[in-house]
């Protein structure tokens, strides 16, 4: 098959219309999981089939696309999805968060604050926050319908009973506009405060589970917690070893088999930007010598 056999951004126009309808409904009812007829995509489930379909339905030829995987622009998943859209849509791509109009992400929200007009597309493996507490889909839908969310707190209770604190560190459940409890996809809870009052449109696509949900700009998003155990966004208690950033989310990298390790920003664009501005971390000088 030649490239000309593809429609713009891979999916045919009818499919994109169907997905756009689901997106619009999701935006109209923030946090509500809208079912949609997810298509087979040329990648395995779990690699972002939902996110790719949402991105595909949002893209226009003038867009500039950024794709990140765990914050990084240069990992396999990010590179192949970026290439996929370069080839099927011919859109411009970028690694700079501020310049992108559409950002597809897996498991992170970029450190650089988003601005109005941007669309952030999340890849979601399991959209149902109640799934592991109540396996019946009929029952969880009923619970959403009737706002019966006590069970979500049972999970947090179990965390505290077992670990002393709320040990859930990613996919931390949130309540949207005081109504729907939502799974923010497996982003670290460090990113949870960025979900609320965000100027960008946030869209969540789950391909295998066939659900789309959304947060329109400036939505109220509250992380669930207890009065005596409040929500705390957490990160590794270190500075970035390459750019010295104190307030960015860090990856731990094992550097040898004698316990050596370094902490680096998981957001590669943010880290590279800071280094270009002359910021230095604990290990940057050493590397320069080597």
């Amino acid at each position: 098959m030649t490239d000309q056999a593809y429609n713009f951004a891979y999916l045919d126009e009818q499919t994109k219309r169907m997905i756009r309808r689901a997106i619009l409904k999701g935006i109209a009812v923030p946090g509500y999981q809208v079912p949609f007829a997810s298509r087979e995509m040329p990648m395995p489930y779990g690699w972002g089939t939902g996110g790719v379909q949402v991105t595909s339905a949002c893209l226009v030829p003038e867009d500039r696309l950024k794709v990140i995987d765990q914050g990084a622009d240069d990992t396999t998943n990010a590179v192949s999805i970026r290439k996929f859209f370069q080839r099927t849509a011919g859109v411009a791509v970028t690694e700079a968060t501020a310049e992108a109009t559409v950002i597809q992400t897996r498991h992170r929200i970029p450190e650089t604050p988003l601005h109005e007009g941007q669309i952030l597309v999340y890849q979601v493996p399991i959209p149902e926050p109640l799934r592991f507490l109540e396996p019946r889909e009929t029952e969880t839908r009923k619970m959403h319908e009737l706002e019966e969310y006590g069970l979500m707190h049972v999970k947090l209770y179990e965390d505290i009973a077992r670990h002393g604190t709320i040990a859930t560190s990613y996919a931390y459940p949130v309540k949207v506009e005081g109504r729907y409890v939502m799974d923010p996809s497996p982003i670290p809870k460090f990113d949870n405060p960025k979900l609320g009052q965000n100027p960008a449109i946030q869209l969540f696509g789950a391909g295998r589970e066939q659900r789309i949900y959304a947060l329109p700009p400036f939505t109220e998003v509250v992380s669930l917690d207890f009065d005596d155990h409040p929500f705390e966004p957490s990160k590794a208690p270190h500075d970035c070893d390459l750019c010295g950033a104190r307030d960015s989310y860090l990856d731990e990298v094992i550097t040898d088999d004698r316990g050596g390790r370094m902490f680096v920003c998981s957001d590669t664009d943010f880290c590279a930007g800071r280094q270009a501005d002359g910021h230095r971390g604990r290990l940057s000088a050493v590397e320069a010598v080597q």
Partner: protein
Amino acid sequence: MTMMPRTITTDEPLLAVSGLTKRYGARIGCADVSFDLYPGEVLGIVGESGSGKSTLLSCLSGHLRPDFGRITYDARDVLAMGETERRRLGRTDWAYVHQNPRDGLRMGVSAGGNVGERLMAIGARHYGDIRDKAADWLGRVEIAADRIDDRPTAFSGGMQQRLQIARNLVTSPRLVFMDEPTGGLDVSVQARLLDLLRGLVRDLGLSVIIVTHDLAVVRLLAHRLMVMKGGRVVEQGLTDQVLDDPQHAYTQLLVSSVLQV
């Protein structure tokens, strides 16, 4: 937690049922059942397997929708209620104790979490308070305080059943439905559970509808008794009266079928 003595007004029934009928196609589940249940009263429903006891209980507790009849709870028409209101009633004012504790418990959640669930469902958001209340209730049903973080899978059958009772009573319900609460337990554990239930019912002033085929259970717990056969109530009255002087042929058979040791 201190128990406030309930103000019991015995002139108004807590639950009034009239003409309740549920059919499964051409077959009768239960037919034309009527009774009143007053606050603080324990009503036993006995009968053989397939006599419609469980169908009746499911209809009363809102798990099944009856075909005909009226159910009035506290001057409210239960069948006309919206689902939201009925489910709220189901986790505040009502409680349901299943025969198999596995049906009524979350087996993957610790004992404390199981007891706390109903509290969190009605809006409790203070971990310390929830835990204190859970510990208090585990004590009341004679489960050691150091088992609060164990899962029900690590409990014996009798403990699981007691945990289920604690989980149900933590929100101080007024009406408790019990489906064979002592089924599947050995006799000494049964006796202790019955003793516990009798104490709780008396102290909390609960109204209880208890379905069982074990006449000893109703003899100990129930004030009044309904005997069912083929989906219909064949005899009802005070428990001792029905058991000591059965009028209907089927009740006589039932009473005489009990093995004497």
